[in-house]
C-alpha cells in the first residue's frame, strides 16, 4: 500500500469524527503490524474484494463507541445493540469513503461486528498489515488495513 493510500485512510477517519461528532480525533503514526495483538472491546470488520483483496477493521473500546453513539442519537445512554452496531457502521463508512480514492471496483462487504479478539482474521491477511492508531476523547482505537 502506498503512502498516498495510507494518507487517504487517515483523512477519511479524521473527517468521520469531525463531521459526526463535531470533535476531531488525534491520529497516531501508522506502523506495520508485528506479533503483538491489536484488540479492543468491539471490532467492525469489512472484507475487501474486486480491485484489491483483504480486509479493513477498526477495533474500539466500548466506552468510545457508546460516546459516539450518544452524540449521534442525542441520547445519554444508548441501548447496547446501538453501541455494538456503531462498530460496524464506523468500519462501513471508512471503507465506503475510501472508494473516492480507490475507485468503484474497490468492493466492500457488509460489516461484521466481533466482540473480543479478531486475531484469527488478522492472521489470514497478507502482510504488510498497517495499524493506524487514533484517539478520540482519550479513548484509543486502531484502524487495521490489510490490502493486497
Amino acid at each position, binding site marked *: 500500500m502506498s503512502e498516498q493510500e495510507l494518507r487517504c485512510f487517515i483523512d477519511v477517519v479524521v473527517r468521520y469524527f469531525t463531521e*459526526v461528532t463535531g470533535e476531531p480525533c488525534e491520529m497516531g503514526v501508522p506502523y506495520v503490524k508485528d506479533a503483538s495483538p491489536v484488540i479492543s472491546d468491539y471490532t467492525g470488520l469489512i472484507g475487501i474484494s474486486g480491485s484489491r483483496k483483504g480486509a479493513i477493521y477498526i477495533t474500539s473500546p466500548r466506552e468510545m463507541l457508546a460516546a459516539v453513539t450518544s452524540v449521534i442519537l442525542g441520547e445519554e445512554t444508548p441501548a447496547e445493540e*446501538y453501541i455494538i452496531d*456503531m462498530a460496524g*457502521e464506523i468500519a462501513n*463508512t*471508512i471503507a*465506503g469513503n475510501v472508494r473516492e480514492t480507490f475507485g468503484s471496483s474497490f468492493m466492500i462487504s*457488509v460489516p461484521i461486528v466481533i466482540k473480543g479478539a479478531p486475531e484469527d482474521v488478522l492472521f489470514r491477511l497478507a502482510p504488510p498489515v498497517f495499524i493506524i492508531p487514533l484517539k478520540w476523547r482519550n479513548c484509543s482505537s486502531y484502524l487495521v488495513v490489510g490490502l493486497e
Partner: protein
Amino acid sequence: MPGEAPSVQEEHMKILIVDDSFVMRKTIEKCAEAIMITEIFTASNGRIALELFEKERPALVTLDITMPEMDGLSCLDAIVKIDPHVKVIVITALKDSATGLSAVRRGAKGFLPKPFTHDQLREELMNVIGG
C-alpha cells in the same frame, strides 16, 4: 416563525427507511419525526424493504446500498419499477461519484453520502420532498 424547524406540509406522508445499521435507521427516523413525518416504516435489507414497499406504498424512501440479502441498487430498480414516481434518497458510505451517478440514473431523486450531519440530512429530506 423564526427558529421553527421546517416540516412536511403533505398530510400523512409515509417514509420507508432502509439501512442495515440500527444507528442509521434510528438517526433518519428521528429526523423524519422532526419534520413531522408520522408514518415511518423501517427495513434492514432490500428484500424486507421491497415487501414493505409493496404493502405500504410510501411516497419517500431512504435507501442504503451495502446491505445483506438484497443490496440497495437492486432494491431501487425494483421499487422504481413498481412506482416510477416514488422519491428515493440513496444514503450510502460509497462516496465515489460513479455510485452517485448510478443511483440517479436508476431513478433516485437524491444522494447523500455518509457521514452526514443532522442538518444535511434534514435539508436533503426537505429538498426531495419539496422537489
